[in-house]
């Protein structure tokens, strides 16, 4: 098969659809754009990453709090978490959203939150349910992920009362909490978008430092990905994905994760806490509700079977398949 394109470009450049002498392209490019002076460049870099004021009121101060996300209707894990956090001396308990999806009987979650005095923000689930969206707005891009996300959402949507949905819409989108001398920003996905995924392997240190600068806080606490992690940054600040209590962390263990935070003299104490609960009972309840066997398998094995396509290469390599 002869391909004239193999030799077509000798001495020539491709300028759009045209072939032009290389020198003509180089010359056009040399003067293109709007190069700034050195001073203007430094100013442009500073203003692009500058912080802005946030009117969100600051709660606290506290010395020790518990923070969790992604309940996914797992009322059994939530009940255990409230006991565990109280035992560890949490002065306040915060939930970063996504109360529904995946698990059974969404109405069982709200009374537990009230009983535990849990202070919550909206996740994408609450936003979607309160506003009557057709989908969970999880932010998946693969049809396999979206298929199971749709089953989850439809089940939760059908089994939530209008009162519960309306209450979800009253929750704030973010909170600020003082812990010792630190100010924590609590969000669902990221400070920028409710459904942005902050996975450990795709949330590099320089990115997090700029995010903290822009949001004028000492730590960002988020969830949404289902996988917990903590980065203590070179600036002395912290970024924490507090994990989810709705399903295990795709590591072959059936327990779920939440986070204890503590004010310490040397800064923020962050403890990622594994939490056991009666996962067999949850699996049985999911089966009674007719939820997909793929979801039940995750609860029983600790390995994800759905919503895997969104995982970055590193987190994906750590999964079973």
């Amino acid at each position, binding site marked *: 098969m002869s391909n004239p394109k193999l030799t077509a470009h000798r001495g020539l450049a491709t300028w759009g659809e045209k072939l032009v002498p290389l020198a003509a392209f180089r010359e056009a490019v040399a003067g293109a754009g*709007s190069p700034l002076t050195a001073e203007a460049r430094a100013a442009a870099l500073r203003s692009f990453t500058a912080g802005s004021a946030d009117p969100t009121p600051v709660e606290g101060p506290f010395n020790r709090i518990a923070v969790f996300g992604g309940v996914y209707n797992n009322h059994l894990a939530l009940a255990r978490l409230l006991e565990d956090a109280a035992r560890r001396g949490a002065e306040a308990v915060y939930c970063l959203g996504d109360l529904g999806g995946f698990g059974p009987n969404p109405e069982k979650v709200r009374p537990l939150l009230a009983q535990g005095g849990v202070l919550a923000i909206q996740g994408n689930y609450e936003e979607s349910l309160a506003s009557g969206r057709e989908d969970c707005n999880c932010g998946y891009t693969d049809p396999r992920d979206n298929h199971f996300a749709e089953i989850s959402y439809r089940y939760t949507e059908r089994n939530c009362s209008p009162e519960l949905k309306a209450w979800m819409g009253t929750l704030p989108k973010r909170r600020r909490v003082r812990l010792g001398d630190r100010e924590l920003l609590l969000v669902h996905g990221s400070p920028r978008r409710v459904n942005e995924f902050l996975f450990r392997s795709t949330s590099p240190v*320089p990115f997090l430092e700029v995010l903290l600068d822009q949001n004028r806080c000492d730590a960002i606490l988020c969830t949404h990905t289902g996988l917990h992690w903590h980065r203590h940054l070179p600036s002395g600040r912290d970024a924490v994905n507090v994990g989810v209590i709705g399903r295990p962390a795709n590591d072959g263990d059936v327990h779920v994760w939440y986070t204890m935070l503590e004010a310490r003299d040397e800064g923020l104490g962050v403890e990622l806490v594994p939490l056991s609960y009666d996962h067999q009972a949850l699996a049985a309840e999911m089966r009674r509700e007719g939820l997909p066997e793929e979801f039940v398998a995750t609860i029983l094995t600790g390995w994800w079977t759905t919503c895997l396509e969104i995982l970055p290469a590193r987190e994906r390599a750590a999964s079973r398949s």
Partner: protein
Amino acid sequence: MERPGIAAPRVSLRSLDVLWFQVGGTLCNLACTHCFVSCSPTNHTHELMSLAEVRRYLDEAVRLGVREYYFTGGEPFLNPEMEAILSATLDVGPATVLTNGLLLDPARCARLKALADASDYSLDLRVSIDGYDAGSNDPIRGEGTFDRILGGIRNLAAAGLNPVITVTEVCREAAADSGKEKFFALLRAIGIERPRLKILPVFRIGAEAERGGAYESWQRLREGDAPVDGWDHLQCSACRMATGQGVWVCPILVNEPSAKMGETLADALGSFPLDHAACWTCHVYGVSCRT
């Protein structure tokens, strides 16, 4: 490209999340008939980038809080410094390489796996193929390439790296579920249990303008076309492209001098007009070149 009297909408850079590198220039060991940048073994429109050039941009990117780095060309692995470039990049963030798969021998795949394991951040590979057999792929990518691409994918899988397979809609069935299933079957047959696939529309510029036809004059965006929630779906709202000749607005328009924004990332933080026909494809198809 001038359109008298019709103003193009402008897109601001809301954050610089993704930095692309034209690290392989426009040089490629293939000359695919649908290449929107017309890459070939003799196309020097853009040259290979050196490690030193890449480092200069990485230093600036760190200050801007870039989240992810993508490498393309041309064929990135023609660049003799490519693995050193990846190593430097993986110190500061996750990296993805877009490759045609021909230079992925077992030794290179093992080195890439070692680079991935040594970093805190993800290293991802994306391999292009344009059909599920030689009969459909080879007329586009070149004779004998189907088998060689599959060989590269096999070598990656054997080394423990599961690449994303990228298919353009030159393969007409690819957009439909039935077509995707054929690719999944092909990949499962070579031992990839959980295949990954990304389908991209074609950009009717460069070589593709000759193969499939150029844009029609009406395929342009104009003021008033902005969706209610803005232009956040366009990658130019959160990316820039670094080349050996300066910074361009996006990975698609590198052969358009008018799409160059400056010499450094700081020069390129302003807004850009959507006045190219390819912008129409990004908008209408909701394209993002990132995975």
